[in-house]
């Protein structure tokens, strides 16, 4: 499950924000700090998480602990699905 979530997020990020780039992102890399996603990109990523995993991301849940890295997103999505 965890591997699926991480893989899905990674391919989404690679296909949408790293087109033509050879950047390899680690599970613990900050998507913001590495300037992989900007504000619009962040909104797109949240959209992807909501539609792909069937979870709703509340405004108050848009915090680094939930969405900063692929690891964070994985934990966040699993927590939401279990709730």
């Amino acid at each position, binding site marked *: 499950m965890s591997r699926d979530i991480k893989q899905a997020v990674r391919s989404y990020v690679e296909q949408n924000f790293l087109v033509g780039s050879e950047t390899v992102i680690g599970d613990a890399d900050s998507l*913001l700090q590495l*300037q992989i996603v*900007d*504000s*619009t990109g*962040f*909104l*797109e990523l*949240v*959209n992807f998480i909501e539609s792909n995993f069937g979870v709703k991301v509340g*405004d108050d849940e*848009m*915090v*680094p602990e939930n*969405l*900063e890295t692929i690891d964070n997103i994985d934990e966040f999505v699993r927590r939401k699905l279990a709730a």
Partner: protein
Amino acid sequence: MATLPQLDYTAEADRICEQLRHIVFDVLNRRGMVVAMSGGIDSSCCAALAVRALGKDRVFGLLLPERDSSSSSSQLGTMLAEHLGVPYTLQNIAPTLDAIGCYSSQDEALQRSLPGFGTGWKFKLAISDAMGGRVSITKVVAEDPQGNRHEKRLPAPDYLQIVAATNFKQRIRKNLEYYHADRLNYACTGTPNRLEYDQGFFVKNGDGSADVKPIAHLYKTQVYAMARHLGLPEAVTSTTPTTDTFSLAQGQDEFYFKLPYPQMDLALWHLNENRPASELAAELGCDEAAAAAVYENIRAKRRTTAYLHLPPQLAVPVPGFH
């Protein structure tokens, strides 16, 4: 609150006017300037500088309101044109925008987030912080015909569609500006101030397009001071900056900049002068981390809007052109 270092506005106006004469007559080989006048401080200041530089008979004013423009915009624009004594024309661009799908595309995207949105509703876009202030997310704030407020975060595709649709407004205006510029053999004026120019707050091939930009080097507070120096009417020099793009009144700092313009000016000036965040924090009365976040936001906007400044990129360079 602290302010920017004082400019000598007499000398600065002279310098700009000398440059405008040189650029328009010698570099561009045009006979005058077309200025679209929204009634806002930037276009008003540009129009006044153009008149001072070239004379009122070599400046043509355009008032281009549309469905969502505030009624005061045309009034202020007209007052300014009369004050400056320039020939001008008013053309409502709402029918053109309607025909090209600006309003229907905008409404279609809004209806996906707000199913009841339709006739009689008003709306604006507003940014709010996410991710500990490192990301700005856009919300739609709408008012239904009964006066009830609705606020909703916009999904990325809807946000992008609304922005793309409203960008028609700036692009149709620029089309008309160039129509008159071509007709008169004039140059087309771009009216960004330094905040807008630096932070990419313009529409590519819309208000970002121009032959000459007289005040792109002036911070917003300096534009206000210049406008007062040039003796523009109080009604113009006391305006609050708005986007004048959405049906609900919207301050520029709600939509794009994170701070009201006097603070944004200070922040940009401190960053440009390589002053440490601690110094900006002291000026703004905030802690150093908050000032550093403002610096980072400015840098982030520069990165994400860099392409707006770029001319078309040639796959293979052509000698003699750049």
